[in-house]
């Protein structure tokens, strides 16, 4: 008899809107924090010790916040909203000041992707004004690096993942498009390296494990599609996982590369073993679509928790497969 499905260890309520995005910042010495972006334009900074919102930033003039992230521990916050702005906030020492903002011009829901190139120097990829256009700029200088447009019609850019490979070559970018294709771009060469048709429907989300060079993408249908990058930088489709109900909003791999979590439109969070994509748990708590999932980046693996934000305005936190505390 398998163990009963676990319950959340606690929940965070009061966000006042659907939770589009979550981001942990638990590595530093200070209080572990969770950032969330709501559909009503609020960015909540949750203190995970007191389990209360420490601060609420009203941003993007009430438009939906679709992405949040931090730079250099938790001092600088970066957020993206449906008002076509990417904003840079100084949140150190209790402040919440807008430092910079960039206009993206994109009307879609595509979340940005950020990668640190050298200390205090970042690359930011975002969907541009044209349908298939991806723009990459350098931060904090805001200088444009390149614009990537595929030759064929692929529809809107749906999701992005920018990373710096260990081999030392230039940064690479994975992008999912409306027609179900996943493309690999070389940013320095400004050229497409590879392309696969991962789904018949739009790619809703993707995530990539830069160590094993394997990735997985989700769509509005019932399958998760996994693919890998071979030695020649070619994307190759691997096995699929079939879900019970269609639609995945977001995917996230835990830092130790053991678990993959998916945010389902069917109100459920699914946990898989990352190696073989074996289903491990179905977490049921939410009463509406789950929009975002994130694993915390605690230094101590036993403290790492899973957070999920849902359209039902709640964030649930779960402790699954943490050695020693593995009781659900």
């Amino acid at each position: 008899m398998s163990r009963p499905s676990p319950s959340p260890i606690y929940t965070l309520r009061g966000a006042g809107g659907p939770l589009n995005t979550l981001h942990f910042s638990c590595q530093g010495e200070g209080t572990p924090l969770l950032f969330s972006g709501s559909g009503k334009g609020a960015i909540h900074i949750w203190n995970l010790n007191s389990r209360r919102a420490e601060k609420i930033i009203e941003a993007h003039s009430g438009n939906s916040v679709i992405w949040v992230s931090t730079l250099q521990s938790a001092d600088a916050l970066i957020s993206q909203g449906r008002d076509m702005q990417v904003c840079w906030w100084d949140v150190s020492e209790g402040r919440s000041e807008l430092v910079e903002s960039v206009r993206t011009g994109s009307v879609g829901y595509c979340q940005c992707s950020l990668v640190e190139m050298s200390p205090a120097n970042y690359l930011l990829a975002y969907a541009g004004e044209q349908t298939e256009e991806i723009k990459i700029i350098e931060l904090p200088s805001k200088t444009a690096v390149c614009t990537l447009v595929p030759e064929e019609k692929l529809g809107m850019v749906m999701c992005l993942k920018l990373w710096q490979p260990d081999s030392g070559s230039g940064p690479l970018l994975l992008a999912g498009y409306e027609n179900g294709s996943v493309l690999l771009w070389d940013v320095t060469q400004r050229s497409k390296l590879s392309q696969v048709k991962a789904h018949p429907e739009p790619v809703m989300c993707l995530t990539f494990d830069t160590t094993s060079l394997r990735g997985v993408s989700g769509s509005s249908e019932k399958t998760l599609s996994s693919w890998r990058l071979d030695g020649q930088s070619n994307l190759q489709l691997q096995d699929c996982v079939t879900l019970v109900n269609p639609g995945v909003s977001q995917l996230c791999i835990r830092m130790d590369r053991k678990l993959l979590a998916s945010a389902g439109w069917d109100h459920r969070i699914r946990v898989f073993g990352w190696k073989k994509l074996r289903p491990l748990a179905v977490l049921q708590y939410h009463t509406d679509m789950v929009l975002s999932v994130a694993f915390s980046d605690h230094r101590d693996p036993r403290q790492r928790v899973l957070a999920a934000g849902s359209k039902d305005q709640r964030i649930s936190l779960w402790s699954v497969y943490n050695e020693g505390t593995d009781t659900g």
Partner: protein
Amino acid sequence: MESLTTNTDVRLTVTRCFRTLKSSTDSSDIITALRTLHSYLDEGPDSTATSAERAEFRRAHYSSALQLLVSNIQADWLHQLTAAQRAELWDGLFLAGPPEQALLVLMDAIGELRWVVLGKFLQRGRLAELLWSYCLEAAPSDSPQLRETLLGRISALPDITANKLQLNNRALFRPQQYYPLLATEMLTALEHTCQALRAGTDCNLTFVAQTLGKVCIQGHGGLVLAVMAPRLSACTRSDMVWQRVCWKLLENVPQRWMESVLTGLVQAVSGPDALGRIIGNLVLTNKKAQFVITHKLLLLQYKYETRVLRIILGYLAADRDRRPLLIQVLRSVSQAWANSSAVKHTPLEQQLYVSKALLLSVSLLKDSEIQELRSELLQCMLGGMQTHLDSNVVRIRHMGMVIGEYLSSRMDINGTKLKFEYDQDEETRELLSLLAPGACDEPEAEPTAETAESAQNASQTTSGAQALKTDPDSDLDSDDELTPYDMSGDQEISKASPPRYLRDCLEILISSEDPVRVELSLKAAESLVRKNSFAAREISVQMSKVLLHMDDKYNINGFLYLRQATMVALTVTDCIPVAHYLTTEFYSLNYSLRQRLDILEVLALAAQELSKPVTEKKAASISSATTAESTPYPGDNPVHWQQVVEKRIQSKTKRLTKKVNQPVTKATPNRYAPVNICLIHDTFLLAAQMGCALLDFVWAVRYHADQMVRRGVLFAVCSVFLSMPSQNLLVDISDQLFETRSWLADVAEGDPDADCRSLAVQSLVLLDKSLKKQLQDPQAPTVET
């Protein structure tokens, strides 16, 4: 003349020795006498006796010498001998002489004698010596009676020793050890035979064959053949002499024991080829063997594993001379399979067995042979398929489909094939797996070569495993270390939402044609009734009516339970009108038995629920309400409801006797009282009437050809006996009782269906119990009120 004087000399010497042994008390005299006797058995070069003297002693005096020793076992001189002397002189006499005489004396005397000597006799291989001595004799020199006795002793040694020694019996004499020993001794005798044949000496295997036959008929064939078959199979692989010896051995088995030897052998050999090597073309020469192999094992018995079927049919198919027998077998098997009476009246297990035989034998035929048999196979297929598909039993239908598909594919009827849609289950998969070739090949060769090979294999696999481990892509830290949680709750989410108001729910149940909505409404109904009792009271009777007449049109999961739960909830919520309605309907016309039973069940469950104390009741309804909700919020009510209820009970309970430390039983009002009056009818009278009616009804179909019907009948009878008060049983159906009993006994003994048999037994037990109770204590009230 010379031999005559030799005989007299020997007799004189032996008589002198006997006299010494009987009367002397001087141990040196005794020892000399024993030595003298020994000298007649000693065959070494320094033997003092001539060969003529030795032969005479063996022929005429050995048995009596041994009997003398046994009868003097209590004599003083035996105890004066040292252990070494005793072993040498006393035991030695038994072990050195003709083994058959020694065995007979030993077995006769086993009670008094030390078992050690018999043990030594067996362990020293004297049995092989005995068997071999019989192989050498061209014609029997002794009387048939002696042979018969000897045969009996050898084959039943464990029984005899167990009877005589009782608790002192030794492990060596138990069947588990003795029969394998006997098997190796027989193999040794056969080995000697092979050597003798190569050297040009004739041998006679009759006695060994008789021993084998007798052991098998006594039921020890499994133990003996488990040792013999692998060895024979290995020896006959390349050695023609061994093959001839085996065939001769089987030919010499007496007819009356042939069957048990063959059935033991087909179960013990590893494959059809081995069987072919051991028994050769015995089926062609021996009528009995032919009957057993081609008829009895296939059509009359059905207890054997599929492996045995494979071996028998493979054996028939392997040789050109035996092939006509395979075709003959196929004819008879296909007739048996297609026989409609067999489909109806033989046990399912046997039909499965015959089906397997049919599939296997067709799979062994060549296409040309199938063409020859085409018309017969077609007839079998068409007739057999019809009877199988007409059957009410799913398993039989499946068998028909599998076989029909296979036959049609083999016969190639204008390129068309039958294709059925059936759910694969274990049985159909097993049938289909029979068609995969080569599942029963022998695991090979000489034992020595085999072990060497397997060792090599093992080393290869381990090195292979190591190679795998060094593979960088392997999943050393795979997902397997993470044990999955229970994921049974991961069900599909339906688009439609359940009704939120009771009136909507009722509306949907009455008029909706959408299966999803009906299902959701039915699932939501109970909690809606319980949550809003005020609304429920307004429509309680109407809803009960709808539910009572509702059919499971859409095959909803758990339909009966959901409907019942809702009706119970309605009765509990608005008990007087609903109970009144239900009890009235129970007596009105045009209801099915199922509906009437539903009414009774609902009333009973509702009564149970109402009779529970009010507070507990509340807890139950809370729990059912929460489980009925699709996604409860565990975070929202952190304190478990049971604790809440517990607290509430605690706070409301007035503890009158604080000092007494015992749980206070509180008299809580139950809600049963107001309805009590509606529900009390003289129910047992009713039950008796219904029981009688049911028995009358099923009487006409009790010998129905369909086993499902018979099962139903027996179930009905069982439930009548279970529920009818024993008093009424005797009074109301006394005239039928005797007949019913004999019918049940008949079914319990002879029905082909196992379920029917067990149901009949159960009914009999119930009936007897009930009658006994009534007869012992006729005045006892049958129903407690």
